[in-house]
């Protein structure tokens, strides 16, 4: 489905997930020095962010988003 959460306590502000996102879903909150989910509906479930996060702060839900109409 989509990226569900970035755990604030675990996020170390490294920005790796921000770069890793091919859909610009994750943005960086400069004030709090944390990555934030900004455009969840554009998530394409590629798992880049979760895979690359060095602290395991990100969780992506793999259930397919019903928004994409299936071929049949």
């Amino acid at each position, binding site marked *: 489905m989509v990226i569900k959460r970035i755990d604030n306590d675990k996020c170390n502000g490294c920005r790796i997930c921000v770069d890793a996102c091919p*859909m610009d879903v994750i943005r960086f909150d400069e004030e709090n020095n944390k990555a934030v989910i900004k455009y969840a509906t554009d998530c394409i479930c590629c798992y880049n962010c979760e895979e690359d996060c060095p602290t395991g702060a990100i969780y992506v839900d793999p259930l397919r988003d019903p928004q994409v109409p299936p071929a049949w």
Partner: protein
Amino acid sequence: MAEKRLKTDVLVIGGGLAGCFTAVTARESGAEVILAEKNYCGKTGSSHYARDIMIFKEEWGDNFGEWMSQFDMIGEHIINQEWAEIILRESYPRFRDLVDWGVPFYLNDEFGDTSTGLVSYAIGSPAPEEEPFRYAFRKTKYRKVGKVAKYGERHKMMIARRKVLKSGATIIDRIMLTDLIKKNGRVIGAAGFHTVNGDLYFIEAKAVVIATGCLTFRGAWHGCRSNAGEGVTMGYRAGADLSGMEFGYGMYVVSDCDTVTIDGPIAEIGAKKDRVTNGLGEEFMDDIPHIPTNILWPIEVHKGNGPIYHEAYGMDREKFKDALDKYNKTAEGPWIEMLDRAGLDIFKDRFQQYMGFVGSTWAGGLLINTNCETTVPGLYAVGDAAGTDYTGPTYSALGSGMCSACVTGYRAGINAAKFARESIQLEASPEEIDSLKNTILTPLERKSGFQPDHVLLRIQQTILPYEVRMVMHGKRLEAALTMIDFFKEHFLPRMQATDSHQLRNVHEIRSMIAGAEIMLRTALFRTESRGWFFREDYPRRDDKNWLKWVRVKQDEKGQMQLSTEDVPRKWQGDLSLPYEERYPLQYGYGEEA
């Protein structure tokens, strides 16, 4: 919001493998290079998710004639054999380049290039005799014709990024280019914006290389969903010819889990035992493997025999534990882990699957000559964005997408650098700049309007159902076209972007609408069936009329012009053969069923 003006010799648009190759080669040929990527170069593009690369090497016993005849048979006699030969012959040198860049490949002593110990068939993959390419044969047997090297490395594109930077080229990330700048009939740069901070970008260049990948509708298949074909459609608007746009492709995906497929994991973990069944529980594919699912599955569904199930059997999870862990770490993705998370067991469950329609194929796109020049001076195209017709209406070999990205990228790098050396930079006129600014930014200025997610869903509902672009029919193509025309006339001019992120979405949708129209019109135009291209109303190959390529271009008045070019006689194969022999890959469509 600032306005940035940059200048360079060669501008590369898109930072997948083809773009990286172009940038490195152009830089090493002496040109100043800027590579603009709408995401972060090194983490994106289909290239980031792909694993296998095709290598042809006579020293390994590969036979050129045999490879070409396979390409030709699978491509059903309308492939561009000149390009196919170039891609084959240059596959090994480009593979060596990747190795020099530091991209690791699985090591396999038995099948590998033992002199260097670098090349490879992945450890734990099926024996090459059984599955060199997962070719699609219905009535013929597999034949081993070559090797495929596998990327085991998830971060190969980061290695490519570092190579680009080391070469001295400049990378600008999060820059989405949307329109080409033209003067005196020549492309002299491109315009776009920063998707995060909204800054406008005008980049003037002596040569522009389109490396934006395939054209997709953000369908169900992962990995390429961020490619909406902007490069292809901006080239089209600049007057360049396109080729092969009627040939789309799909990939089968698990319905319940946003995961590519279970085929990859099954193949990878060593003991490939799987079956595909229809709604009646029948194994309708005989022993046909996977690539032709593109057309066989939709046809089965169309007969009323859906849905389609795919399952692995006779395997023991514990036994393959190590192989599974290894697979999770490949470039393709953590599929097994995600299946687990979704509560699905690859060893026990039967998976319902369907085709995720992608869009333009590896060989369809901006028509290029063997120097990778498009039909518009100053404009080049590479990789999935290029139209080389090397595979025709199918996919000729697993690993050839990556391979052709490297080969075309390398050639374009050399030729674009040469073109830049020999030309002077033309200045964009202030009127042109103003007009582009307008085109790019207007959606941001609207106070209300149609939102991107609304229009995206409409496009997907129109183009993704199997009965539109998989099992095609003139009437249904017309119907879809009616809707796309409506989106173009009604939604597009009224779309609103609330910020720079949504502006990106609007411009992707603008490209999808143009791309959908091109794909539907070209599909209507080709009144026959061939390879994966299946027209229910014209269910046979028509050698008399359609040993041809379909070309599209936009004329001066903005009208779409369709035309054909004959496949040279010498590439048409033996026309005296009976139909069944000429086309051994029978997909069971129409009268053949």
